[in-house]
């Protein structure tokens, strides 16, 4: 098999993941796009491992690690998203801007209220 097939497939998959990460509004969907990126890497690693006939199977080992890692990441990531949703009532990534650099000329606002309101204020 030509090595370019899996490599190009992985490259395109990675680019799609990049697009998804940057374009999706719902944080869960952003996490899904990250999974696409990681899977692209996995495809690369497996293909290279087979191509190189690596005696140590570094590629396949790293693939397994990456899969585990992705599972751990998505578990923790979803926990964080849920926490955000519980405290902010939204999972939209572009509404979570309370921690951005405070407006230079704005009054020194109370944090406690800014937590709750800034998400709504920008909506």
């Amino acid at each position, binding site marked *: 098999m*030509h090595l370019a097939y899996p*490599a*190009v497939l992985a490259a395109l*998959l990675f*680019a*799609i993941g990049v697009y998804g990460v940057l*374009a999706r*509004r719902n944080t*869960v*969907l952003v996490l899904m796009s990250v999974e696409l990126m990681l899977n692209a890497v996995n495809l690369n690693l497996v293909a290279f491992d087979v191509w190189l006939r690596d005696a140590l199977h570094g590629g396949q080992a790293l693939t397994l690690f990456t899969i585990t890692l992705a599972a751990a990441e998505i578990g923790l990531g979803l926990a964080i998203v849920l926490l955000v949703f519980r405290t902010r009532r939204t999972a939209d990534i572009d509404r979570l801007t309370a921690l951005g650099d405070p407006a230079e000329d704005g009054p020194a606002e109370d944090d406690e209220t800014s937590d709750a309101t800034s998400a709504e204020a920008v909506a």
Partner: protein
Amino acid sequence: MSLLAAAGPLEPAARSFLSPTGVEIVFLLVGVAVLGAALVTVTTRQLVHAALWLVVALGGLAVEFLLLTAEFIAWVQVLIYLGSVVVLVLFGLMLTKAPIGRSPDADSGNRWAALAVGLATAGTLVTLVVDAFRTSWIDLGAGAGSAKATGEYLFRHWVLPFEALSVLLLAALVGAIVLSRRDDEGKKPRPRPGKLRAGKPVGTSSGKES
């Protein structure tokens, strides 16, 4: 050293670009399906559908792994991704009350920047790999991806990362549990009024930091 090693597969040898074998055809077809499913995943406006299309994409990838003779990884892919990750994602969507039908604002305003960066990424990466691998061929003869072989290489050569991964999994588990656990009191912990904050109303910005 690896010059010798890499020289072999770089040779075009007797093969031509235009004589794909059966495996290659299947690989390409599944690949196209994976790409299509991935594209739908990142563009559909129905959030739940996105998760289902992700299943298709990841499942397709498992097939690709099989075709590349990495059996064990393919099964792990099916087990972990389709069995748990997608389920988790669906749970996440439901718990964050994602709309079931079409949601008009599934994409953020960043979409055009995203498109630009995504296209640039695709262009760069494809150019890179095509340039590098234009004359490389995979010999799929020897399958070394069985469960037994995998266990052997993991425990012969990759013990350290494997062990470290156990710490990682435990930490992720504990972290996820502690973050999703609701407080016993049913309210967020408030900064305790104390000597440090004398003279300031409780819960002001300065109180939060300590």
